[in-house]
């Protein structure tokens, strides 16, 4: 009798787990909401003993989406509109004044790009926005061949290093040494139209990709992003934090600083500097990206007015009950040290690399220290797995 009962309980329990696990995985929003009610009810019973009412993932996600990510993409979209306008004006009348305007629009948009580059999530991740907007070094030779041949397919993976901001950089600054000479490329009787068309095509593609992501955020993804407020590996918080740290490590630390400084290659690589044809803005691009990552960490709204829940607040919340202290200040102090170091660099990081690559190396090392704070200490505190690996543990 007893034994039958036991067997019955095994199978009942097995079914129960399956149910639980499938609910906890995803989809079942109703259960999630019901659970939320339970939590609220508990809060009312004994407020003091309950941890975690000051922080909810949903609140953080809402702050990120509404006050940081969507406004940043809106700003980029605005700059893309201006860039498009300036490009059209220039291709209609290719003169110096219009070239200068176009260059300024390009720089504005490039700076705006630095504030969204880390948000490789949702539609941006799906269409690999980053790979079509800012792959450098540019394959200038390949791009020129493509441009002259016409009939190109910019959506091709093989064309990723022939478009985006680096391609515009080359088309606006790198074709020749003076503005007058550059303009002749567009006024050339035979090839001029091809340059004009290519320039317009590039800008329109960047603009349409930006809008694709922005519209998706507004009309669809925002809701999903905020709704997926669980702690699982595929939920929004984990994905966003991983994307954020990955960006900081691979694109900020390595891409903008480490690789040009020759840290991975034994010798400096000046051609790997961002905006290398323009030259004197690479530091500004780096600084903008650094500020954007720090602001995201602190939950500062894109308009700079106020701030909401973010990684800094979450650390604060968790540290109330832990032994570790002030990880958020450690990270912010480290950001300050990085900024203080970057200020000393030449406006053109290509020049900096040539005259004294150690300045870049020191910047890299300071950034690496922040990687350790974020990737090792912060992720452990959050219990977020780096590059979540789908494998069993024990």
């Amino acid at each position, binding site marked *: 009798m007893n034994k039958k009962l036991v067997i019955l309980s095994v199978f009942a329990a097995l079914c129960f787990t399956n149910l639980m696990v499938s609910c906890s995985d995803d989809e079942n929003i109703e259960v999630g909401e019901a659970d939320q009610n339970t939590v609220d009810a508990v809060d009312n019973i004994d407020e003091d003993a309950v941890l975690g009412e000051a922080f909810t993932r949903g609140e953080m996600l809402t702050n990120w989406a509404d006050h940081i990510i969507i406004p940043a993409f809106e700003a980029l979209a605005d700059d893309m509109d201006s860039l498009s306008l300036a490009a059209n004006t220039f291709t209609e009348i290719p003169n110096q004044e219009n070239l200068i305007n176009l260059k300024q629009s390009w720089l504005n948009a490039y700076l705006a790009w630095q504030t969204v580059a880390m948000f490789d999530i949702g539609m941006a991740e799906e269409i690999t926005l980053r790979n079509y907007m800012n792959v450098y070094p540019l394959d200038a030779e390949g791009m020129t061949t493509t441009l002259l041949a016409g009939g190109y397919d910019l959506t091709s993976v093989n064309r990723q290093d022939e478009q985006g901001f680096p391609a515009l950089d080359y088309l606006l600054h790198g074709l020749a040494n003076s503005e007058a000479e550059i303009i002749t490329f567009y006024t050339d009787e035979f090839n001029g139209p091809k340059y004009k068309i290519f320039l317009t095509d590039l800008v329109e593609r960047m603009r349409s990709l930006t809008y694709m992501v922005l519209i998706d955020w507004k009309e669809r993804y925002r809701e999903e992003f905020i709704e997926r407020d669980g702690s699982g590996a595929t939920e929004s918080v984990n994905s966003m934090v991983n994307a954020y740290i990955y960006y900081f490590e691979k694109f900020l630390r390595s891409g903008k600083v480490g690789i040009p400084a020759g840290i991975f*290659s*034994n010798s400096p690589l000046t051609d790997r500097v961002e905006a290398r044809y323009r030259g004197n803005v690479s530091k500004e691009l780096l600084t903008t990206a650094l500020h954007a990552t720090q602001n995201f960490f602190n939950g500062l709204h894109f308009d700079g007015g106020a701030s909401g829940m973010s990684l800094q607040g979450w650390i604060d919340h968790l540290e109330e009950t832990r032994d570790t202290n002030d990880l958020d200040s450690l990270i912010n102090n480290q950001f300050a040290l990085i900024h203080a170091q970057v200020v000393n660099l030449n406006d053109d990081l290509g020049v900096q690399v040539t005259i004294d690559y150690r300045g870049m190396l020191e910047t890299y090392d300071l950034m*690496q220290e922040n990687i350790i704070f974020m*990737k*090792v200490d912060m992720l452990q505190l959050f*219990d977020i*797995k*780096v590059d979540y*690996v789908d*494998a069993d543990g024990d």
Partner: protein
Amino acid sequence: MLSVNSYFSKTTSSAPLAIFRIAFGLLMFISMIRFWALGWIDKFYIQPHLFFSYYGFEWIKPLGDLTYVLFFICGLSALFVALGLKYTWAIITFFLSFTYIELMDKTTYLNHYYLVSVISFLLIFLPAGNYFAWDSLRGSRKSFLQIPKWNIDAIKLLLCLVYLFAGMAKLNSEWLLQAMPLKIWLPTKEDLPLIGFLFRYDWMIYLFAWGGALYDLLVPFLLLNRRTRSLGFIMVVFFHLLTAILFPIGMFPYLMIFSALIFFNYQFHQKIIDGLHQILRIKNHKTHQIQNVPFQHSPISKFKTVVLAAFFLIQIGLPFRYMLYPGNLFWTEEGYRWSWRVMLMEKAGNAQFKIVDNASGNWFYVNNEDFLSSFQEKQMATQPDFILQYAHFLYAHFSQQEMKDLSIFVDCFVALNGRKSTRYIDPEFDLTEGYDSFAHKSWILPFNE
């Protein structure tokens, strides 16, 4: 001596061992299908550029596309074990293929994989294919209704050792006094339905920590004692299903739950077998034909006894080897594996390798992503033997190029159980000068509380 002899001559029904064989074989068969279906063969054993070997087993490597064949053989042999088809060959094949798979890359080391290897090794020496097995039902293999009692006790002993060592490993200040690493893991589960809210209470985390340790230490005794067995088994089911919900631990909970059935008396198992007879429409007369042949002692079975005695001595000794090493076990991980230390650590690290060309003084950093999968990089950054092996791989890789005289250094930081990260490896130590051995690795920096 007499009592020892009389113990070893005691016999018992072979039904529990048959059920154990079937359950183990089926679970392993499902495990292999699951592993394959999740795409893990490709991800773990085909895609990576290098594989981390266990010391002394460097010759065991994945076999390229033939790795699939290996998994196929392993899965098929598990099914043969379950069916009792060519049992001896099947279990030997399963043990060898499964263990080979586990030795291919220590990145995927799990205590529960080790448990599977250990159980299947033990099963090689037990007459698990001699009752309610394909071959014995068809008469091509002898059937034993009775087998020596120690055959079943051996499995019980192994399971008890696993629980007891797991429980003893939890008796440390991190687990009991800090509730670490549960304090890191459980609060993130607060969005789970029904039970999630519990993890918002600090005392609940402590309850889980103490409850887990107590469970591991008590459950063997509850299962061994006839009167508390049902309670023990309910605890087994409850505990393992709870861990299945809370942590990504794959098939392990089910393995433990079904293994624990071995503690029940033979009538229970016989009922299952009778039931299976009916469901599978195996004609009853065949079972009745089984002769009550007692398991015979022979020189071979004497040899088996010696092997198993050595096996259990190793099982009991291995978890204590950590005492031979200086320093904090969690920090150095010297003597950590093969000891049923489960869920004891949350460890994260970051390792940046610097390659110095001694001829020119030039140096550069390594982009780990170029050589390691993210899983490998994660495991590498917190374990000294991985770091050393990786450094030697890098040496072999880069010294093929112009540079011949290389030194390799690592900037490695590790955070353990919620402490702030600190430097892990002596940054001045040239890793190309280090060689793996069972000796203490002096270049691991001491652990600071």
